[in-house]
């Protein structure tokens, strides 16, 4: 049993947890879940998946490093988030599967079958609220009794902890700092997330699926949203919290965070790849010549990107939406896609910056 844990489970989990494996793997898992949602959400199958994951968590706790990391008081909410999210993802897709199957038989969704029935708020709703309130209070009191709020050494501007981490809900953004500069990962992306979320009701003109669970009638909207929420937010938070240790290096889930571990930095810019490696000459001194390849690539991405999207993935959407709405969707999606593109660039060719203009702090 112990050998199984040491020689099979640990190496496999450590391999899967590497950012360049975990992100693509969870993306594939999400796509497969959405494609086969009717099968995956069958109670028995979903319960098996949930139990296997919970089992992995429990078994892994036999490892002291893993246990220490998981049970850090401020990390408890992330474990709750992961399992809560899986549960609610199952619940919503299960209801969607039931409703979509009903729709194929020409029947109304679950929610509509009860529609005519209305109940009095007192006592029906007030009772539900009261029960929720009591349950939440109970959970919170137990949580507070059994896990003390952390209090470390007094604040000192002279002693920098390694690693220095933002609060857990911002760790996805901090993880993006591996791939982007602060102005992009810390300012532009958060702003676009907020703006993009606000834009959702105005760009999603699909009248179907209002007020009931469905996947079939809103496949595109739900896929994009879940990618943003689960992959680019929750999975990145998980990586940032549990798998980034000293010097923001990657550590496997069972590794000790060794502060002396250094990863060689060998990342290079597009300009260097173009001028030095491909043309075998020195770097031009003027920044606008030096960065021309990168600028052209980024320009083509933002200008040709919408056109390509309109002809391919978003063909249907382009027909349905007016030009303003379509542009907003396309630009927001391009910024979203820019994250995995830069990550792939880093993993595959050690790409540092596409555009590198330190003169004006414009590095992408």
């Amino acid at each position: 049993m112990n050998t199984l844990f040491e020689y099979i489970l640990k190496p496999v989990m450590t391999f899967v947890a590497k950012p360049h494996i975990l992100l693509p793997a969870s993306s594939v898992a999400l796509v497969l879940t959405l494609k086969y949602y009717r099968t995956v959400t069958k109670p028995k199958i979903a319960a098996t998946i949930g139990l296997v994951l919970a089992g992995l968590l429990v078994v892994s706790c036999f490892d002291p490093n893993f246990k220490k990391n998981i049970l850090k008081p401020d990390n408890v909410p992330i474990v709750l988030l992961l399992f809560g999210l899986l549960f609610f993802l199952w619940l919503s897709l299960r209801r969607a599967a039931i409703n979509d199957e009903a729709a194929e038989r020409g029947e109304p969704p679950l929610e509509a079958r009860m529609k005519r029935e209305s109940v009095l708020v007192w006592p029906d709703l007030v009772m539900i609220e009261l029960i929720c309130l009591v349950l939440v209070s109970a959970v919170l009191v137990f949580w507070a009794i059994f896990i003390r709020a952390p209090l470390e050494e007094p604040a000192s501007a002279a002693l920098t902890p390694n690693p220095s981490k933002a609060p857990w809900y911002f760790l996805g953004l901090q993880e993006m700092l591996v791939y982007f500069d602060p102005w992009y990962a810390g300012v532009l992306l958060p702003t676009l997330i907020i703006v993009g979320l606000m834009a959702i009701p105005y760009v999603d003109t699909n009248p179907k699926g209002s007020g009931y669970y469905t996947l079939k009638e809103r496949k595109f909207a739900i896929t994009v949203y879940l990618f943003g929420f689960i992959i680019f937010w929750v999975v990145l938070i998980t990586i940032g919290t549990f798998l980034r240790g000293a010097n923001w290096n990657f550590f496997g889930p069972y590794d000790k965070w060794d502060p002396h571990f250094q990863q060689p930095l060998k990342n290079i810019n597009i300009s260097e790849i173009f001028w030095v490696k491909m043309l075998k000459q020195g770097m031009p001194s003027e920044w606008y010549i030096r960065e021309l390849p990168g600028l052209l690539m980024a320009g083509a991405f933002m200008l040709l990107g919408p056109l390509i999207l309109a002809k391919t993935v978003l063909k249907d959407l382009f027909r349905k939406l007016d030009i303003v709405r379509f542009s907003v969707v396309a630009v927001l999606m391009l910024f979203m896609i820019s994250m995995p593109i830069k990550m792939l660039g880093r993993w595959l060719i050690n790409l540092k910056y596409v555009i590198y203009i330190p003169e004006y702090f414009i590095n992408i």
Partner: protein
Amino acid sequence: MATVPQTPPTKEPGKPGLLAKVRDTQVWKSIFRHGYPDTQRNRALAVLSNVFLHLHPVRVRKSGIALSFTWCMGGVTFFLFLVEAVTGILLMFYYRPVAYSAYNDIQELRETIPLGLMRELHRWGAHAMVLTVWLHMFRVFMTGSYKPPREFNWVVGVVLLLLTLLLSFTGYLLPWDQLAIWAITVGSNMARATPLMGHEGPGASLLTLDGEHLVTAGSDVRFALLGGRFVGENALLRFYVLHCVFIPVIAVMLMAVHFWRVRKDGGISGPL
């Protein structure tokens, strides 16, 4: 003509119980304008004549209140906000937002003050609130409840989500320990890189007047947030005021709009 036998009273008409007596007093009647809510009329009045309950309509769609539909996440988020307000006020009795005492006050809270659970409740409640607000948004998205006529309420919700994160972020600094100061340092370092407004942001170096840089470490947006070039005493006071007064006041106002709009836009969403 046969006399109809009188139905015997279900209860012996004895002395009224203590509760019944209380309910018959002038004081009780002045507070609750309706009888015990066991009839349709009194149940409607229980909701209508109560300022807290009247956020609700009198009747709701049965499918709308099913736990498997709403997950009660919005309600739980609001409840957690109230928990945060109550525990936060209790914490304010003991905590002073100045660098020389902040840390000691927290230690005092942990070790000597009765009901020392307040800080734990406050911190875990805050974490839980971040979770529930995300799950609430997730539910609203999955049920398409942002679709017309509820577009604007979704926007208000996004702002409330942002405020929840900012509330949590500003509160993170207050214990004034290593965890707090460095988490806020990492977070607020981002502001340095704000385009044009942070001294390391794109384009900031272009803003000059007679050759002098306008945006420096002593005048950029991070300086405004922290009241200094690093996370120090001024930052502690600013974050305290933002955390205890400024953001909660805005959040309460927007919550009022949010709840009001739920009703005005047709109640909890459901299929047409």
